[in-house]
């Protein structure tokens, strides 16, 4: 299922003194099975954009096509509800949304809302909790007794159990320790590859964007500046600096090494590739 934005304009508090143009005439596309990153400085319109992708906000002008569903300014709640089934969204600090009396019930909340029966919902909940390494012994205790990291996993399982075709992640690793950070990001990558779903990642962490995403959309003050392959955009130090964004560590390291005479044939995408390229360079150097 593809998502198309057509001349999407989003205005907050229209026709009041507080009017604010959050997104300005954006036309772009999210293709099925691709891992997207949305980057941009604070206030660039990232969260407005993702909220338009699952009907939490409706366009002020323009249209959003989600598969065969079209969202416009005055789309009915009944239709918006259909979108929630297809587009799942993990908010920043998702553990703040937990409310049920047991972990398993909380995970079943979403699936039941979109029409799964009790049994299927339980099956899905158990499957995704297990996938996220939540121990079976924890299924029946209140989610509030868990640690922060575990609560986050339960909340994420709650979205995955709805089996959305598009998964939107808003700063999914904020406040996690480094180990859980890597674990969580690798998990999303695994899910994206295995299930072939579209993932849209919104984050300030350029390292994650560089390592995990296929394509990037760069926003600045409500305008779509660039849209294209991750390797092209995130290795363009001039472009990133112009919009106040960090250059990914690995890109910077490679270019610094290049200046010292250690030149790689291409910029590595992750740690393993870096090590491989370096080993190759070393072997060649030794000869």
């Amino acid at each position, binding site marked *: 299922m593809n998502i198309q934005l057509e001349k999407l304009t989003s205005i907050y*508090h229209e026709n009041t003194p507080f009017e604010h143009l959050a997104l300005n005439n954006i036309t772009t596309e999210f293709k099925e099975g691709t891992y997207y990153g949305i980057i941009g400085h604070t206030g660039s319109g990232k969260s407005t954009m993702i909220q338009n992708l699952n009907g939490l906000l409706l366009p002020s002008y323009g249209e959003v096509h989600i598969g065969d569903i079209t969202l416009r300014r005055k789309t009915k709640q009944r239709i918006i509800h259909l979108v929630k*089934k297809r587009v*799942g*969204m993990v908010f920043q600090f998702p553990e703040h949304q*937990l409310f049920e009396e047991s972990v398993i019930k909380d995970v079943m909340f*979403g699936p039941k809302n979109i029409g799964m029966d009790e049994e299927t919902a339980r099956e899905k909940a158990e499957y995704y909790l297990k996938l996220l390494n939540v121990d079976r012994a924890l299924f029946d205790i209140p989610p509030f007794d868990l640690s922060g990291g575990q609560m986050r996993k339960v909340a994420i399982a709650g979205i995955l159990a709805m089996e959305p075709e598009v998964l939107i992640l808003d700063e999914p690793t904020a406040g996690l320790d480094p180990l859980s950070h890597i674990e969580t990001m690798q998990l999303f990558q695994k899910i994206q590859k295995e299930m072939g779903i579209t993932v849209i990642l919104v984050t300030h962490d350029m390292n994650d964007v560089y390592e995990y995403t296929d394509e990037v959309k760069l926003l600045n003050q409500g305008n779509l500046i660039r849209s294209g392959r991750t390797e092209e955009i995130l290795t363009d130090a001039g472009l990133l600096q112009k919009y106040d964004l960090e250059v990914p560590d690995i890109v910077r390291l490679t270019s610094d090494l290049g200046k010292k005479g250690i030149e790689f044939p291409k910029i590595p995408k992750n740690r393993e590739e870096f090590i491989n390229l370096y080993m190759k360079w070393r072997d060649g150097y030794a000869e």
Partner: protein
Amino acid sequence: MLSKMLLGRYIPGNSMVHRFDPRAKIIAVFLFMIIVFFANHWTGYLLLVLFVLSLTKLAGLSLVFLFNGLKLILLLIVFTFMMHLFFTKGGTVLIDAGWFTIESEGVIRGIYITIRLAMLILITTLLTLTTSPLSLTDAIERICRPLKAIKVPVHEIAMMMSISLRFIPTLMDETEKIIKAQSARGSTFMTGSLKSRLNALTPVFIPLFISAFKRAEEMAMAMEVRGYQGEEGRTNYRVLDWQWKDTFAIILMILFGIVLFMIRQ
């Protein structure tokens, strides 16, 4: 929708009304609440309306803005008017529809009470619109200080008030966020029967309470860590400054009251 509500909001500004000492403003509003009841015929009510309108002008606020912000209250005012229209009897009968009558006394009383109510709402709204919540609580603390003689914990109450005021916007933001998170999980607030809509509120309120309690605990901890132990030995960062113009404003208010009292019939 909530963002348009004016009740309890503060609009920063530098008008004459903004610059009065908050204590003077509270006392003046209190006096006004008494004075409103002095008026009992047209001239009195006309004076009241003129007084409030000129204050609004002085505060640099537009009437349209006030009106838009108080639309919800309008419902209450219309309701009061209707009650009087149908249930106050006396004078000549204007309309007789068999099962109900509208009599002249009802119309007149209705209009009077409506003006009273509207003026009271406008003047208190003007107070909160032109005074920041913090200086309001400061002023209340100072005005109520004599009550300490009878063991009323004035400082603690004022502290609680300013903390609650401080957290209103935070909780509003939080509510919005949780509503969004739950509706992304397919929760429906806008459709379905009343019962299912009420049920949809549980997933909002529980996380909200949990985070509010957590915040309260953190706040208490942070205050204790910084050595807060009540009023003993504390000075104020914002010092209230009572000037001649404040005394003058109070005197003017009292004079206005006397005039209204004199023209009573």
